[in-house]
């Protein structure tokens, strides 16, 4: 900045510092010291951002490389020592591949469009109301439920023997026994889409809320309201254009995730053939090692599909923006929008209820004795499953905790170091930084984790706990950073100035003032990181080479078996696993600062 300005503004000052300012001229000859600001920002990005980017993106790049090589026939360990297109020929010869690809594309695009539409409708309808405050409060618990647990819960709820069917039977449906309907795992992927929407709406809501503050949304909406626009139209025409660019990357992440998710698809998705991602994992884990080449080619295809879908989405954005501008300049007020606002409320309630009832269903099934159709509750309750499974659950629960705590703590230290570097240099990462942060969430997991496994084994890194933690870190870091960055940057910097003017060094300001004041956001970021780690399925499965068992891998493995009571128990434990972290994040700051009104009022 300064160097760019120099020729323009500093023309009156000699570059060697012997400037003749009006003052110095007056005071005969000047004592000349031209000074840069003290503690000037150092050059280069510093160790923290470089290390963080290496930890986050190194595995992604290594993974893509490790996928690309075998996709073209090169994998010496398995006898592939020349370039060939055979993996691709085999891939395209797979029966049902077209359906797998179509499922991946359609479920991804539809789930993303629906999630975004519902999110925007909810925010537009309720921003600034008491309902909105309630929705905000429900968000964190909804977000913290791992995808797999929510998917199990939804599967139980909508299954032919689930609570929905029971509630309408036999009086409305005439069913005396569970009907033979393929609701879960329907061939069109509708239940998969529903499961994705239930989990992605809370995520997009949270990201939209964060964007609202920066977009001066309240003022813009109020202005439109006073001009006679209906509440929904006010939001859509005056606020959305400023908000959407800020939630674009989260939307991209949702699209990539929905297209390539494995665990949710194994629980709710079609099976013959399954979506591409599930098919890929089956090949990657097949005892027939020759299938790995085909899996690698398929993984590259998956990356290509996501890139194509992102491009398609971008075109859709441009078209929507054009239509939106025309709609805006037309000046239509849409003052009566009751029906849509009720629909928005209905969507919010449906999603919350679906997840909550789903989890309740897991709990009831885990304790169900005999449960006749269409009784709403089991005739008898028993703790037989819990008695039997407690000893089985404990070891993977411990492994889950060790991985989650370690990964989240490492991520937290790196995030603080990055944010502190940014603070001390007075710089903010630009759009490029945001892209780097979202890259691990946008490159499909199936696309690079398989290659990462190959790259790790050729580099002699043994599969195990440490490797799994490193793989989790790739996904934990972005969320920890995103969670912490807002509060960290919003901190009142006069606190630092006050401390420095009392003689406190930068290190002391950080340790004695900033970190204690940031206790609540730090604890929340840690809980978010742990929740992300707890929910990881594919990284644990592939990088752990099946040897690292966590609550998530064990629970998802039960999906195929179909034992409701067993799934209920494991799914419930998985769903509850993130809660202690969030409870601690809530209780710890309140307890530590219970005598400090200034600390509680700030939150």
């Amino acid at each position, binding site marked *: 900045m300064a160097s760019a300005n120099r020729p323009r503004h500093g023309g009156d000052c000699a570059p060697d510092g012997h400037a003749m*300012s009006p003052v110095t001229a007056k005071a005969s000859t*000047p*004592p*000349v*010291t031209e000074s840069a600001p*003290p503690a000037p920002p150092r050059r280069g990005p510093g160790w923290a951002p470089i290390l963080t980017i290496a930890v986050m993106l190194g595995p992604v790049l290594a993974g893509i490389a490790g996928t690309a090589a075998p996709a073209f026939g090169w994998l010496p360990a398995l006898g592939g020592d020349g370039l060939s297109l055979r993996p691709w020929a085999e891939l395209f010869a797979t029966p049902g591949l077209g359906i797998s690809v179509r499922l991946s594309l359609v479920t991804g695009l539809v789930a993303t469009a629906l999630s975004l539409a519902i999110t925007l409708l909810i925010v537009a309808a309720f921003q600034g109301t008491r309902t909105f405050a309630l929705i905000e409060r429900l968000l964190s618990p909804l977000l913290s439920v791992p995808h797999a647990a929510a998917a199990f819960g939804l599967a139980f709820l909508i299954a032919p023997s689930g609570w929905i069917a029971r509630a309408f039977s036999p009086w409305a449906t005439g069913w005396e026994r569970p009907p033979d309907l393929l609701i879960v795992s329907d061939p069109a992927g509708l239940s998969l889409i529903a499961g994705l929407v239930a989990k992605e709406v809370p995520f997009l809501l949270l990201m939209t809320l964060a964007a609202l503050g920066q977009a001066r949304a309240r003022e813009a909406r109020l202005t439109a309201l006073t001009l006679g626009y209906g509440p929904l139209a006010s939001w859509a025409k005056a606020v959305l254009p400023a908000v959407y660019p800020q939630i674009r990357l989260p939307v991209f992440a949702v699209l990539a995730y929905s297209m390539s998710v494995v665990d949710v698809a194994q629980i709710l998705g079609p099976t013959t053939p399954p979506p591409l991602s599930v098919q890929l994992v089956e090949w990657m884990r097949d005892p027939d090692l020759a299938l790995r080449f085909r899996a690698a080619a398929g993984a590259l295809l998956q990356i290509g599909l996501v890139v194509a879908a992102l491009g398609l989405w971008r075109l859709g954005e441009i078209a929507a923006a054009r239509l939106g501008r025309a709609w805006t300049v037309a000046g239509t007020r849409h003052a009566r929008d009751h029906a849509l606002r009720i629909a928005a409320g209905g969507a919010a309630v449906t999603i919350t209820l679906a997840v909550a009832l789903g989890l309740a269903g897991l709990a009831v099934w885990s304790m169900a004795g005999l449960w006749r159709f269409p009784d709403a509750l089991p005739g008898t309750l028993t703790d037989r499953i819990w008695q039997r499974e407690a000893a089985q659950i404990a070891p993977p629960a411990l492994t889950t905790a060790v991985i989650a705590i370690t990964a989240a703590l490492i991520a937290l230290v790196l995030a603080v170091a990055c944010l502190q570097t940014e603070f001390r240099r007075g710089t903010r990462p630009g759009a490029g930084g945001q892209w780097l942060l979202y890259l691990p969430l946008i490159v499909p997991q199936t696309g690079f984790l398989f290659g990462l496994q190959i790259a790790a084994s050729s580099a002699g890194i043994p599969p195990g706990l440490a490797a799994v933690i490193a793989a989790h870190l790739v996904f934990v870091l972005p969320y920890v950073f995103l969670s912490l960055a807002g509060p960290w940057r919003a901190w009142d910097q006069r606190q630092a100035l006050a401390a420095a003017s009392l003689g406190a060094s930068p290190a002391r*300001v950080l340790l004695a003032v900033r970190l204690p004041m940031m206790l609540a956001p730090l604890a929340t970021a840690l809980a978010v990181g742990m929740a992300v780690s707890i929910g990881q399925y594919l990284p644990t499965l592939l990088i752990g080479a099946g040897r690292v068992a966590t609550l998530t891998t064990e629970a998802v493995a039960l999906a195929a078996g179909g034992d409701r009571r067993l799934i209920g128990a494991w799914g419930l434990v998985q769903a509850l696993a993130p809660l202690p972290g969030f409870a601690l994040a809530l209780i710890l700051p309140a307890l530590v600062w219970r005598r400090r009104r*200034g600390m509680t009022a700030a939150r």
Partner: protein
Amino acid sequence: MKDAAKDEAGPPVPRPSGPAAESPSAAPAETPGLHLEALSVRLGDELLVALDRHIAPGEVLTVMGPSGSGKSTLLAAITGTLAPAFRLTGRIRLAGRDITALPTHRRGVGLMMQDDVLFPHLSVGANLAFGLAPSIRGRAARCARIDQALSDAGLEGMAARDPATLSGGQRSRVALMRTLLSEPGALLLDEPFSKLDADRRAQIRAFTFAQARAYGLPTLLVTHDAADAADAGGPVITPDGRPL
């Protein structure tokens, strides 16, 4: 990028010999007080600060002017928090020590801001202890010094209190005592009275100036309130050095 100005500045260079030696502002190194020697700050082509002053121990120099006139730039220059886009020339010396290029925490310049900025996570006593110079050692000695400061400020027995439970006037006094306990060489007042209500205002103002004099601190007051300036008693100037 941002520190290009540093390239041409380097560490503070020794004063050039020759005519400079006769400069009225070129005080001997041991002269007490705060010296602003041919101090100027520019942003682009705009000259925001141009001062050549000496503030003696116990003296108050008041800088007045409308917002945007360079008052906060002057304070940032003295505390060492100028943004990189600003260009500073001249020198700032405190008790003979050149502090122009020192980081904020090593300048020995105490600062009172518009808000008291007490640390909300620390008790009143811990806020004072944060400021209290480390040269005072031992728990008992430090506690005694803090209790003394509290009683000087008419806040006896409030060490254990949560700062959020204090009145505005009490908080101001705590903030001032915290600054004084850090044994600064000079005191900067950045409109510290503007948020107090009218009857407290005169009282806190008188207390602050009395303490500054008692500690023998060269004091620079930035304000847009004529009553503040009148009460301070010293010379009143604009950020570009014109007397008012």
